[in-house]
């Protein structure tokens, strides 16, 4: 291909220019804005000034931000843990041949591709005080009175986590399912001769072989989960009383709810830094293998 010379770059440049213009350039400016006093008023008066680390200092002293850090931690760790376990169990189940398997796999994929507005809305209907879950549990007499799933400041983040676990199962399932299909059947057969059954077989044969895929799944799961925005915005909007924000929704709230774009940018820069750290650590583990 080399003889075509610089003409070859004509194929990649449009996509690169596009991505630099609409993603990289804004990304850099996001950092610039985080050091500026950019608000609705300063934009109109064109008085946005550099104010050093003030946005960052304000953010770190902000009790809602501290709450947000804790929320993001709870949300991410619990989501990844349960999505992975449930996805893995379903993948093990689907590793057998049975009728209608492919159709059921398509059904499992639904949560991933259904518009997030729809899944968010229906989970809101489930979690409301008079929503489906409370009425269902009340009618079975499993709870004495309604549980404030999304109206209690301490519970909302856990309810959001439940919804997000549902949302993440297809992704974990399909990666692990594809990985399992690559495990040679002979390995299981020889293990069976040695007397390994059930859980033992899974733990000592499947998990070690799948290790690279497991790490990839956890890595991508972490990236996806830290990024979640829509689900929270649709179900609670970060409420009640700013108690269920993640980095993404809090940054959005500061910028587009309070019109303090500089502060919002600072929160999202902190978020990006955390993503970089998490991804690097997981990548190191991956490379060491």
């Amino acid at each position: 291909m080399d003889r075509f010379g610089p003409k070859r770059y004509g194929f990649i440049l449009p996509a690169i220019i596009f991505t630099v213009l609409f993603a990289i350039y804004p990304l850099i400016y996001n950092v610039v804005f985080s050091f500026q006093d950019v608000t609705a008023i300063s934009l109109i008066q064109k008085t946005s000034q550099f104010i050093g680390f003030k946005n960052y200092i304000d953010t770190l002293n902000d009790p809602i931000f501290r709450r947000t850090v804790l929320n993001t931690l709870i949300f991410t760790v619990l989501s990844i843990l349960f999505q992975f376990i449930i996805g893995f169990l379903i993948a093990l189940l689907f590793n057998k041949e049975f009728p209608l398997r492919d159709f059921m796999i398509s059904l499992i994929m639904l949560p991933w591709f259904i518009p997030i507005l729809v899944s968010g809305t229906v989970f809101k209907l489930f979690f409301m005080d008079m929503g489906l879950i409370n009425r269902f549990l009340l009618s079975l007499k499993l709870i004495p009175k309604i549980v404030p799933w999304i109206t209690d400041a301490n519970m909302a983040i856990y309810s959001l986590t439940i919804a997000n676990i549902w949302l993440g199962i297809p992704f974990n399932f399909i990666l692990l399912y594809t990985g399992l299909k690559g495990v040679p059947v002979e390995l299981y057969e020889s293990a069976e001769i040695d007397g390994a059954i059930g859980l033992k077989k899974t733990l000592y044969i499947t998990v070690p072989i799948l290790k690279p895929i497991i790490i990839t799944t956890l890595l991508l799961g972490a990236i996806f989960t830290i990024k979640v925005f829509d689900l929270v915005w649709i179900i609670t909007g970060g409420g009640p009383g700013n108690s269920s924000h993640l980095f993404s929704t809090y940054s959005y709230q500061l910028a587009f709810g309070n019109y303090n774009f500089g502060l919002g940018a600072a929160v999202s820069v902190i978020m990006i830094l955390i993503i970089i750290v998490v991804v690097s650590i997981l990548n190191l583990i991956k490379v060491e293998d």
Partner: protein
Amino acid sequence: MRQKSMWKWTLVALIPVSFIVFPIYYVLVGSMMTTSQIFHQPPYLIPPNPQEIVGNYSRSFRILGPYFLNSIIVTLGVMVVILLLSPAAAFALAKMRLKLENIFNFIFMLIQMLPITATIIPLYLFFREFRLVNTFVGVILGISSFAVSFIVIMLTSYMRSFPVAMIESAEIDGASLLGIYWKIVLPLSMPALATASLFAFLQGWSNFVFPLTLLQDDKLYPLSIRLFTFVSEFGVQWNYLMAGSFIYSIPSIIVILIGSKFLISGLTAGAFKE
């Protein structure tokens, strides 16, 4: 005998599958009830009089009607941008051994890791300057700013597997670069391009945050944002909301049920790329 024992696993698999499908099933059920039936105690899991579906769907069709076109424009726009930019870039990355290849790869990979909030604040402020706020062009560019690189990565891993011999023999025959792309690379990539189109469709159709941020005029709302404003506007008319939500989901459900094989192969190819 053997057949019978295998159906047993189908029944076992039905347990997790029902839990996963239930919320979507409930949207359908909700769209066949009145609001007071939706909030009935004990709750209905099967609609008591499903004929409510007629009233609910015709009402929400009337409300949503004008917004369908908005969703279609945004979706088509996103598909055009992605299919114009991504396959060519993937061809270059997969086969051309460019000097800056590593940098290009890094840029596309980086975008995959970014949260939407990493760029949306500056993007909104720039679009405001260039009068792209409140336009479909702005929304299409915004959605594509993330989607283009995802599709590049997906297509690159597919195109890497092409036999080099075919391209080389065309080169020897004196074909131009554009000719090779058009007559060899694109036809060979058809399955991957189909997958890419499905993804582009789902991105454009489902995206929430860009229209939420960039559109203020409610006449321009796509279905996602129109439905988002439904609750506050109509108080507690959950039946119309459920009917509208189900209508809005139908294209995605069709795409998944028909194309899940393509989608899965595209996704796993992208994920396991080293």
